[in-house]
């Protein structure tokens, strides 16, 4: 938040990396990268490189955590110690990663049809191999694809992206340097089918008007993110279809 040696983050309506305020970084998703997992996805979102993997559903253990009515989700978000251009990071969970794991789990508790698997657990792993701002949003976007690829039924495929503010400008999809010097950051996850928010966090300083602007940017970018998610899932099947439908 608002450091002293603040670089000029926006000049003539362009950001340091050349983006306009409401422009996403390039996003690429690949499905099926972890062979042992039931479903997996690798996302490159700008300089973020993240793997999401799903195991289960399987019997929830230890037994006392079982819910006889529905499945439970266990989620682990973690960052590799070499994921930052700065110092070597510490391994193991910290307060930040524990909180992100919890809010990510809650996103998917909304859409996964948990009642179909009473007594079971679904394990969701998000490993950040390289982080450059917005890793929780990119992780949730990848995890949604990994879950869809696993065949676990979901009422919708959520996406996530953050918006924030630098100086007077509201901007979409903050990278690390923008995040470091931003006046506000607001990661959001959306269920496209209902338009409802499944994740909402915010810190900093935003007026009601600025939040509305940020939300408009997030919803508008959602069409693009959803399209990339769908294409990643469909391409593997459509390629095989094409091969034989000629």
């Amino acid at each position: 938040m608002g450091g002293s040696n603040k670089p000029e983050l926006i000049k003539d309506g362009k950001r340091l990396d050349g983006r306009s305020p409401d422009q996403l970084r390039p996003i690429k998703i690949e499905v099926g990268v972890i062979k042992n997992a039931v479903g997996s996805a690798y996302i490159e979102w700008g300089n973020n490189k993240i793997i999401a993997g799903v195991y289960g559903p399987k019997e929830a253990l230890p037994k006392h955590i079982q819910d006889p009515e529905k499945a439970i989700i266990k989620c682990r978000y973690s960052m590799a110690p070499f994921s930052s251009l700065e110092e070597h990071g510490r391994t193991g969970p910290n307060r930040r990663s524990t909180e992100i794991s919890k809010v990510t789990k809650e996103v998917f508790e909304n859409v996964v049809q948990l009642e179909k698997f009473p007594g079971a657990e679904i394990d969701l792993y998000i490993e950040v191999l390289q982080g450059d701002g917005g890793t929780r949003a990119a992780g949730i976007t990848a995890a949604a694809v990994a879950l869809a690829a696993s065949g676990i039924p979901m009422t919708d495929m959520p996406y996530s992206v953050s918006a924030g503010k630098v100086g007077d400008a509201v901007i979409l999809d903050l990278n690390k340097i923008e995040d470091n010097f931003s006046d506000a950051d607001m990661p959001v996850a959306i269920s496209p089918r209902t338009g409802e928010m499944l994740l909402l966090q915010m810190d900093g300083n935003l007026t009601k008007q600025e939040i509305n602007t940020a939300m408009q940017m997030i919803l508008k970018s959602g069409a693009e993110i959803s399209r990339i998610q769908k294409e990643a899932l469909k391409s593997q099947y459509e390629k095989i279809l094409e091969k034989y439908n000629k």
Partner: protein
Amino acid sequence: MQIRTVTEDYIKDLLDKGIREDGRELTSYRNISIRKGVIPSAEGSAEVMLGNTKVLAGVKLGIGEPMPDKPEEGNLMTNAELLPIASESYETGPPSPESIELARVVDRGIRAANVVDPKSLFIEKDKVWSLFVDVYILNYDGNLFDAGTLAAVSALATARMPKYENEAVIREGNLGKLRTENIVTSCTFAKIGKKLILDPDSNEEEFMNGRITIANDENSIRAMQKGLSGSFSPKELESLMDVTFDKSKELRRQIIQLGE
């Protein structure tokens, strides 16, 4: 728990005929591919695919203090994570004995072969480089030792060297390479019944009763580790060393190629 797809008898019957489930000979490796520089935020990185085993190693350098007994040497720290994403049977939580053994065996080969000379990491009195090597297991299908060493050494051999100027670490811009002195690789063998096989996959590891890892450079053996309850005769070790010197040529060639 993931289901076992083969029985012990099935594997043993095949080995008796001199073949393996995936059609390999007893002393053949699976396909190996190495990609360098996959994580640009790290000073060095490499992803190794050994069959379906997928390992990522990252190298970071930071400023540290030397050990009191070695005031003119930098620090080398190797860590291994059996990530829960890599297998149904890996749990979250504190490091398992398996991951610690893996880290220590990889570490021992790198140290013994002097892949990085600790003296070259000295900066000034009470100030040295600390070199961190993190071995990340992304998908488990057996033989993490060889894949881990390959990934770690590949990451070291292709790493850039940050600068230390005016009490600050400079990690970007025009940087030279991390100085490496040697290349070490390892060959891991499993013992199933009386048969010895190179590069066991996960089905084979399920039924092995002994395991031996031999790390070497061009001329000598640099580290060894025997694992599990089974035993090996000195004669067996001798023949495994021969296989190791033979097979390691190709592994070393692949690492050298990365730097070219």
